[in-house]
């Protein structure tokens, strides 16, 4: 635990924690929400993340990416909670088959989704679709696309190689697009042929 609030560098550690770590609370919550897909569970993960972060704040190097550091803690907290729940985490790192499948669906997705992708009211559908894809891929998409992490940053948070981030990101984005294209069709925005409102 952080018992002395002044670091060797003369900074007030508690003030640094407030200024750096607590300002990332919204980002940590969003990441936890994507990990858990449940608001109450996400809040538990956030609280535990901040407690752990506070206790080990002396190990954080000021000047490095505090969000990346917090995301890593949050993911560890989440995985630990899943372990306690005796639920297994299954990861599929083989991107090759996934890439082939995604490429096959690409033309259909572009035709179906292209006409509506700029709609301002698509946000809720995107978030629902994101929650529906496997966490293996969703975590990479959320870190890079929503939380603006680099491939290297996402790799560090997820504890996987950069190449795996790249393949999961590709597959995750394609799965998200496929789900959105189905939504667009079901909602009547597009026809099965991919036209929008009868005119393309």
């Amino acid at each position, binding site marked *: 635990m952080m018992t002395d609030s002044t670091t060797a560098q003369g900074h007030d550690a508690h*003030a640094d924690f407030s200024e750096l770590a607590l300002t990332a*609370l*919204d980002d940590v919550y969003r990441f936890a929400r994507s990990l858990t897909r449940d608001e109450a569970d996400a809040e538990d993960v956030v609280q535990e993340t901040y407690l752990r972060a506070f206790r080990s704040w002396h190990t954080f190097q000021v000047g490095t990416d505090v969000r990346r550091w917090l995301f890593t803690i949050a993911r560890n907290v989440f995985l630990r909670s899943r372990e306690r729940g005796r639920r297994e985490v299954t990861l599929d790192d083989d991107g090759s088959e996934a890439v082939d499948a995604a490429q096959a669906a690409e033309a259909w997705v572009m035709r179906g989704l292209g006409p509506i992708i700029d709609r301002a009211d698509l946000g809720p559908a995107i978030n629902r679709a*994101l929650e529906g894809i496997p966490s293996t891929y969703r975590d990479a998409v959320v870190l890079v696309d929503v939380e603006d992490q680099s*491939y290297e940053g996402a790799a560090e948070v997820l504890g996987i190689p950069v190449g795996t981030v790249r393949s999961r*990101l590709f597959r995750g984005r394609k799965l998200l697009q496929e789900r959105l294209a189905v939504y667009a069709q079901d909602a009547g925005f597009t026809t099965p042929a991919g036209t929008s409102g009868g005119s393309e």
Partner: protein
Amino acid sequence: MKESMSQDTHDPHDVVDCRSAMDRLFEMLDGELTPERERQVRAHIVGCPGCFAHADFEERFLKAVRAARLSGASASLRERVLSSLRAQGWTG
């Protein structure tokens, strides 16, 4: 802020065709390519109607995903976190 340009090992004299441009598309849009490689891929895309349409779609898609980001922590969660930190001695 993304900051890495990872794993972009390539021969600078490589010719960028449709396949290699599309293979690198997400990395380009994510800012993960070296400036030189990005210039080469962009040059191909600008001159190729098919790749341009594909790149335009993916760019709009990523923009939509970013714009759809969920709202942040609620006030009650914020207070819950602060309360638990105070209980641990946080004085910030």
